């Protein structure tokens, strides 16, 4: 570890959270990215070859085998909460297989099977900070850099955009304009998600959208133009359908400007 967060390995050992055998331990999340605040959790990943047996762990879900992910949590002396995820190395292998070039022809089903914890793992891997056994982490970073991850994530979001767009159009046709407005907001979120992913910025949580947007700085839709849409600046309560149409037109334009992998079809 580079010392930015103190003696992480020692802290984990004091809480009995370092297994006798492991492949790597590293930190990810907003604090490592530099976006965190005093309330942010500190996210740690422990890569193991044997499943963690623990009565204190909460179990998160992944679309992998096994489908469970033990997560230990504690509060450090400084009051910060730590979340420690225990990933089997075979789960990481399965996750990487989901974004191999071979899966691009059936990209949408493959991407749909990815759950939040998996997306977060992939997102955090690129900037993860080593705590112990750095070699494993560096090798995995090199490996993921050679995979079509951004296209996969962009297509995953575009697929969701299609679904919500269809819903908006159906709601407009049925004169259910209020529902159309709310659904259009979801569609916009996925369009922007796809846009940011195509620029290498993706993540499972919308809470960092503004940060991700600024980091990606896409020319296809400036931050200010997105912010105006997101904050519904042009929304007219007397004609809400106009805002909905503006949003969907923007979403469609974004979809046409995001270049995805040539193996992929709609």
């Amino acid at each position: 570890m580079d010392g930015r967060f103190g003696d992480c390995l020692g802290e984990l050992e004091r809480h009995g959270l370092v297994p006798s055998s492991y492949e790597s331990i590293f930190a990810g999340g907003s604090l490592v990215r530099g976006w965190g605040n005093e309330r942010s959790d500190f996210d740690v990943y422990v890569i193991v070859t044997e499943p963690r047996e623990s009565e204190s762990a909460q179990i998160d879900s992944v679309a992998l085998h096994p489908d469970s992910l033990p997560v230990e949590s504690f509060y450090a002396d400084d009051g910060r909460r730590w979340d420690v995820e225990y990933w089997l190395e075979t789960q990481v292998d399965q996750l990487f297989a989901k974004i191999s070039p071979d899966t691009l022809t059936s990209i949408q089903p493959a991407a749909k099977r990815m759950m939040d914890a998996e997306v977060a793992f992939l997102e955090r891997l690129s900037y993860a900070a080593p705590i112990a056994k750095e070699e494993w982490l560096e090798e995995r970073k090199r490996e993921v850099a050679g995979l079509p991850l951004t296209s996969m994530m962009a297509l995953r979001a575009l697929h969701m955009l299609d679904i919500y767009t269809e819903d908006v159009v159906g709601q407009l046709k049925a004169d259910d304009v209020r529902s159309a407005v709310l659904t259009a907001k979801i569609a916009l979120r996925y369009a922007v998600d796809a846009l940011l992913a195509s620029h290498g910025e993706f993540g499972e949580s919308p809470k960092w959208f503004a940060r991700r947007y600024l980091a990606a700085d896409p020319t296809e839709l400036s931050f200010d133009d997105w912010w105006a849409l997101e904050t519904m600046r042009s929304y007219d309560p007397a004609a809400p359908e106009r805002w909905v149409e503006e949003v969907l037109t923007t979403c469609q334009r974004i979809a046409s400007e995001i270049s995805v992998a040539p193996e992929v079809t709609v």
Partner: protein
Amino acid sequence: MRPDAVPARRLDARVRNVGGTILVAGPREVLELTETAAFVWNRIDGQRTIEALGRELANEYDVELETATEDVAELLDELLANDLVDVRGG
């Protein structure tokens, strides 16, 4: 289709840019647009007439206005048949 007809892209038309090639999909088929078809598709905005689109196409690709306008109308026939556009005044 009359030259003063105004096409608009359907909001639920699915679009992908696959390595620079534009694919558009309606409920039935996926169409792979040629470069000139994509040029027209990107300018369909519910405001421009077929004639205006033909004029822009003619200027961009240095072809006769009449030929370009016919090409636009032909493309719109295909897009209309696939529920990818609505046309006002056609």
